[in-house]
């Protein structure tokens, strides 16, 4: 028994390993089929489908943060001096553009509150264009319907990917 206690815990549980294998297989199929952003779309769909069959277990924090670190590292590795030189104005305009997008999100929140009957706090947190994890954590601080906030953000994240993939396919064609 003491020897068993000394065994290192696996990094992923059984269902999490199934999800990871499904992501790799789905991603490779998506790439092979030539779907725009096929690795992302294929992995996402495969994991969502597998989650209907295996017990649903959230991924460990190290993997969630690891995914962000991998994406951030890949983007940062492409920053050269010429890219940095052109980034100044882009950042200024980007900040203004994003303020406009945040404003559009708040407008949608007002409409959401009116149409769905949720309170304005829930609606604002549901349509604030931030990260799912961070806004869910923020929702827990306030007297709002956290479940609604989570659901809207899940929907937004998935629909965004679909929207962008279709948009890029249309622009590319």
């Amino acid at each position, binding site marked *: 028994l003491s020897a068993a206690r000394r065994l290192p815990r696996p990094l992923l549980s059984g269902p999490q390993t199934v999800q990871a294998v499904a992501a790799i297989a789905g991603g*490779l199929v998506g790439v092979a089929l030539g779907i725009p952003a096929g*690795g992302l779309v294929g*992995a996402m769909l495969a994991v969502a489908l597998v989650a209907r069959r295996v017990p649903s277990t959230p991924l460990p924090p190290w993997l969630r943060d690891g*995914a962000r670190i991998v994406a951030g590292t*890949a983007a940062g590795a492409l920053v050269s001096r010429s890219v940095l030189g052109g980034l100044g104005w882009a950042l200024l305009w980007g900040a203004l*553009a994003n303020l406009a*997008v945040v404003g559009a999100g708040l407008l949608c929140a007002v409409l959401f509150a009116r149409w769905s009957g949720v309170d304005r706090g829930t609606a604002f947190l549901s349509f604030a264009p931030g990260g799912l994890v961070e806004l869910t954590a923020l929702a827990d601080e306030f007297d*709002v319907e956290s479940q609604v906030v989570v659901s809207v953000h899940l929907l937004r994240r998935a629909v965004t990917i679909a929207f962008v993939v279709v948009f890029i396919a249309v622009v590319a064609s």
Partner: protein
Amino acid sequence: VSIDLGLAVIGGLTGGIVARMLRVPGGALLGAVLGAAAVQLALGGDESLPAGVRIAVQITIGLVVGSNLRFEAFRGMGRILARTPALLALLFTIAAAIGVGFATLIGATVPVGVLSTIPGGASDMIAIALEIGEGAPIVAAVHLVRLLIIYVVLSSLFRRLLPPAAPTVPPPGA
């Protein structure tokens, strides 16, 4: 994979882990971008990512997004969420229009502009920008600015305006 790229990866991992440990909002992504960029700028490199790396990034992000899509989360929310797709379509259309304007202003392509302003997951949009092979640093930088606006400006506004959650009452005898 070149030595420069390997060092940039080490810089990104270090930056991401340190920012995460310091509990910086959005720190894993922010720290990784800054860490990898700092190393890359110090080395004066001008890298492009191998196709395998881009696919690995996409699959990792796809795994995280897919694992979030638990269908039971939407159960019983039909009435509340009924009009959400229409509102999301409105939000995306406005954001895409702003993205086209942004692309025109900075002289980037339309996909780069739209990826920069569409309010999706920052890491998801970066992964797609890596796929189309252009503008990933711009997309990353603009999304990081958006996250700063949300976490610094909006969250402090929410803290002023929204009622705090009721304190949890311990069960009797606890």
